[in-house]
Structure formats: structure tokens, C-alpha cells
């Protein structure tokens, strides 16, 4: 469904992505792991053209695009088939929870208002925020804001949702509520590409794991194989370091 070939990206003299290729099938839940600065977030941002890649080919539903020269019109078209959940939520601060969800439907997709509100209410109910629809972002906790972010993503019925470290900005006690929603989406067959540091999510929810380091994919495996028998020594080291982080 989504395929990336040879994606490269540099910031000045720093090579952030050094020829990344990957393929995502419909229904895949792909967790992208790796140390800070390995290029995970930049890769995700390139997929939705929030960053312009230096080179690379993106194939979406069989249609191939040069990631450097793609037209604005094609970018807009692709973005309407995808959704993005941000680390810092990025809810529209001047809109209520409900309006955050309807905005992309009514304005972005010219859906009749009544229908959009109906879809938005269902999406917010699904993420457990039926009683918070008229709240503004500042009136919501981080976990609630991120669940609005997820509602905003699913309401547009995207073919794939990109998650950029969706729980990294959250207090520990709020992470669970967001992961639970993501787990539910995964079980319903939503295609997801998730940059995360949550090993449990990668292990128990994702179907596939990519391990990135220094702008390349070092290991790609099914979630089971990745945790049961990582091939790369570097991956074993990373998994060990992350799991001992919590022991003081």
C-alpha cells in the first residue's frame, strides 16, 4: 500500500536519512524504534511532506511520486488519504475538541456540516471523550488532547495513520489511555506507522518492527522475531539499555 525507496534527507551537512526503504501493507502496524537522532521522526515527516526529502520515491496505492519534486496538488491529495498524530498533539488551539475533528471534514473535504459533526461525535466517543466535545485544548489533559488528536486522525477515514512519538510528551499515568486507543485501532485493522519508545506497544500491538540508527534501517522483522531474537548486536544493546533505564 505504501512503499518508500531510497529516501535521503540532509540538514546542512548532517545526513539524517541515508537511503531508507520500507514497505507497508494494508493492516500493518509498524513500530519504528531507535535511539534519539536516528532519523525516525524526520522519516515520518518526509512521508507526509512536512519535510522535503532530498531524494526518494514514494508509492501510494500503486501511484509513484518523486519525493523531492512532487507537486503541491499531489501533496494535498496524498495528505487527504493519510492522517498524522503529533508528539505535541498540535490541536487547533482556537477550536473546541469537536471543531478540531470537524475542521478537516468540513473545510478540507467539503463535507456537509451535519454529517461531519455526526462523524466527529462518533470519533470522539470512540476515544472516550464524549463528555469533552465542547472543551478547548487548554481545558484538556495531555492524554485527552492526544486522544482528540487521534479522533481528528480517524474521522477522515485515512488509509494510514502516522504517529510521531504519540506518548512521549505525556505524563506516565496518561500514557496508558492513549496506547489503549491505539491498540483498539490496530485491532480494527487500521494501518499504522508508529514512531515510538514504547517497547510494550511494539511488542504486543505492532505486527512489524523497524529499528533505525544513523539514518538507516538496521533491522526489520516481525514484532515477535524482533524481540525474541534480534539479529543485530546493536539492537540487543538498545533493547537492554531501554529496559534497564527504568531500574535505578
Amino acid at each position, binding site marked *: 500500500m505504501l512503499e518508500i525507496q531510497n529516501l535521503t534527507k540532509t540538514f546542512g551537512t548532517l545526513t539524517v536519512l541515508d537511503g531508507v526503504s520500507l514497505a507497508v501493507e494494508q493492516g500493518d502496524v509498524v513500530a519504528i524504534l531507535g535511539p534519539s537522532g536516528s532519523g525516525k521522526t524526520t522519516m515520518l515527516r518526509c512521508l507526509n511532506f*512536512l519535510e522535503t526529502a532530498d531524494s526518494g520515491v514514494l508509492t501510494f496505492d500503486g501511484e509513484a511520486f518523486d519525493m523531492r519534486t512532487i507537486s503541491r496538488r499531489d501533496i494535498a491529495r496524498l495528505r487527504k488519504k493519510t492522517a498524522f498524530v503529533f508528539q505535541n498533539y498540535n490541536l487547533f488551539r482556537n477550536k473546541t475538541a469537536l471543531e478540531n475533528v470537524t475542521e478537516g471534514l468540513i*473545510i478540507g473535504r467539503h463535507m456537509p456540516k451535519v454529517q461531519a459533526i455526526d462523524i466527529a461525535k462518533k470519533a470522539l466517543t470512540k476515544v472516550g471523550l464524549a463528555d469533552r466535545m465542547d472543551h478547548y485544548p487548554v481545558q484538556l489533559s495531555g492524554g485527552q488532547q492526544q486522544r482528540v488528536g487521534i479522533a481528528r486522525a480517524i474521522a477522515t477515514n485515512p488509509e494510514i495513520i502516522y504517529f510521531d512519538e504519540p506518548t512521549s510528551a505525556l505524563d506516565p499515568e496518561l500514557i496508558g489511555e492513549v496506547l489503549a486507543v491505539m491498540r483498539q485501532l490496530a485491532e480494527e485493522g487500521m494501518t499504522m506507522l508508529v514512531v515510538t519508545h514504547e517497547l510494550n506497544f511494539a511488542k504486543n500491538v505492532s505486527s512489524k518492527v523497524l529499528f533505525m540508527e544513523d539514518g538507516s534501517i538496521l533491522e526489520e522483522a516481525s514484532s515477535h522475531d524482533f524481540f525474541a531474537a534480534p539479529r543485530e548486536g546493536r539492537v540487543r544493546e538498545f533493547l537492554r539499555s531501554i529496559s534497564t533505564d527504568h531500574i535505578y
Partner: protein
Amino acid sequence: MGVVTDSFFKILIPGITMTIPLTAISFALAMVIAVTVALVQYARVPVLTPLARFYIWIIRGTPLLVQLFVVFYGLPNLGIRLEPFPAAVMVFSINEGAYCAETVRSALESVPVGQLEAGFCAGLSYLQTVRRIILPQALRTAFPPLSNSLIAMMKDTSLAANITVTEMFMATQRLAARNFEYLTLYLEVAFIYLMFSTVLTRLQSWGEKRLKAGLGE
């Protein structure tokens, strides 16, 4: 006391019929200029952006009083003759527009870039995102400094006396020339300006509260 009671309405009435309309019309036009010029720069529109910078450079770099004189006494040399009131409106709106454009531009740039990205990812175009997400947030940020500019401009309309607009200050000067009660009359007109700006300050507090409520704060 007789001086004050005799003159109070003679000063207040030109305040209501001239100072207030001059302020209101000029500031409304200044807002249109400010938002347009700020958006041009925010969106980095080619050609228009350097023009916007040039406009701001010229207007902010020259005195308001000189601008009034150039338009009212200078332009007739080119055959362009304006009535005092329209000339004053033109100068005040162009002058205030330049200052307020900078206020609005900095407010636009203070909106986190994530808001723009979230708009794109939700399927909104650049223009849709700016109009519905960025600009409303920026105008909230810009509201207090813009109110400040409005109050300053209301007081600056007294300069229009120099181009024969019979506003409040000119009315006072004329009265003073007749009865020589300079101190009383100029303190009186100062007091009326103070009343006007007090009303504007109250309106500002009220507006700020309304805007905060609009973000759920």
C-alpha cells in the same frame, strides 16, 4: 468655573463629531492595511514582500506631522487637492497601518509552526489553515498591542488641527484665542482626551476577557 461650563460642550462636540469618526475610520482602514501587509510577509509572497518592507520603512521612518503636511500642503503642487478630513484619514490609516502591520506580523509568527502542520495534515490548504487557524490565534495575541496603538492614535488625531481639521484640539485653540484662558482650556481638552482613552481602555479589558473565553481560558 464659568469658563469650563461655557466651553465644555464646545470642545466635547467636535470631539464626538470629528475626533471619534477620524479615529474610528482611520483605525478600521489601518487594520485592513495591517492584516494584508502582515499576511503578505508571513506568506513570503514574492515581489509584494519587499514592497511591504519598503512601505513600513518609509512610514515608520518619517514623522506623522510631516506626512500630514506632505499630503495636505504638498500634494496640491501635483494637482492633488484633498479636503482636510479625507487627507487626515488617509495619512492616519497609512501611518497606523504600518505600525500595526508589524504587530500583526509578529503575532502571526508567534503561532507555533505545529498549528500550520496540523492544518496541512488535516487536509486543509495553506490559505484555509492561515485563515481559520493561524490568523484567529494571531489576532488574539495582537489584540492588546493593537488596542495600545488605537489609544495612541486617538490622541495623535490632535495633530490633524495642523491641517485645518476642526477636531477637538483645534476647537480648543480657537476658544483659547478668544478668552486667553489657556491653562483651563488646555487642561480641559486634556481631560476629555483622558475620558476617551479611559473608555477605550475599558473596552480593551472587556475585549481581552471575551477573547480568553474564546480559547476556554
